């Protein structure tokens, strides 16, 4: 499997979040909190999770939903699962 390009991965995940949460990609900084800063709710988080699963053909266990609080953590989670 080709090595994942981290910069691309960040950009792709950002675009997924941007589309679902309907916020400008510039606002999605690594530390911006999904709920407090980007106005997301738990269902949007679930949609992001489902989109990432489909896009990267990974399975993200339900308990990880709580970890999806900002871009940085989402990126870490996907990176871990993609490299497995």
């Amino acid at each position: 499997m080709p090595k994942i390009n981290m910069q691309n991965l960040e950009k792709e995940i950002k675009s997924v979040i941007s589309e679902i949460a309907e916020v400008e990609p510039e606002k999605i900084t690594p530390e911006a909190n999904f709920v407090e800063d980007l106005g997301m709710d738990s269902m949007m988080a679930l949609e992001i999770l489902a989109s990432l699963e489909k896009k990267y053909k990974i399975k993200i266990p339900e308990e990880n939903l709580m970890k999806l609080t900002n871009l940085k953590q989402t990126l870490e989670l996907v990176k871990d699962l993609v490299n497995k």
Partner: protein
Amino acid sequence: MELGLNTIKKALHQRYPFLMVDRVIEFEKGKRAIGIKNVSVNEPFFQGHFPERKIMPGVLISEVMAQTGAMLFYDEDKKENPTYYLGSIKTRFLQPVVPGDTLRVEVTPVKITKDAGIINAIASVNGKTVAKGEFTFKAIQ
């Protein structure tokens, strides 16, 4: 497994004129459900939509798909099934639905967690797809 109206009323909290599933002809909990909605000329919404040409409103086709989707979560062991609310829908309407049509809605899960889920729905009449969509739900706490 087939589910009749009594079971549907246990699973769904909607009532007349908003109970949009007449029968569930196939049910595998959390895996697949097929709901049937017979569209009669006497449906209250046909009075105004439209007086000169009766077409089932797309939002109500969505409602049939959403309610069939909520059936996927039905758990007969639970004393009371939760009420679900919609977070988002992504729907495409392909053909008009008119009085006399039997809507058949097949739903499958995209992702289900213990209190929320995303489902896929395909609505058809006589084997022809009339609408399809993706729905995100959450149980009201």
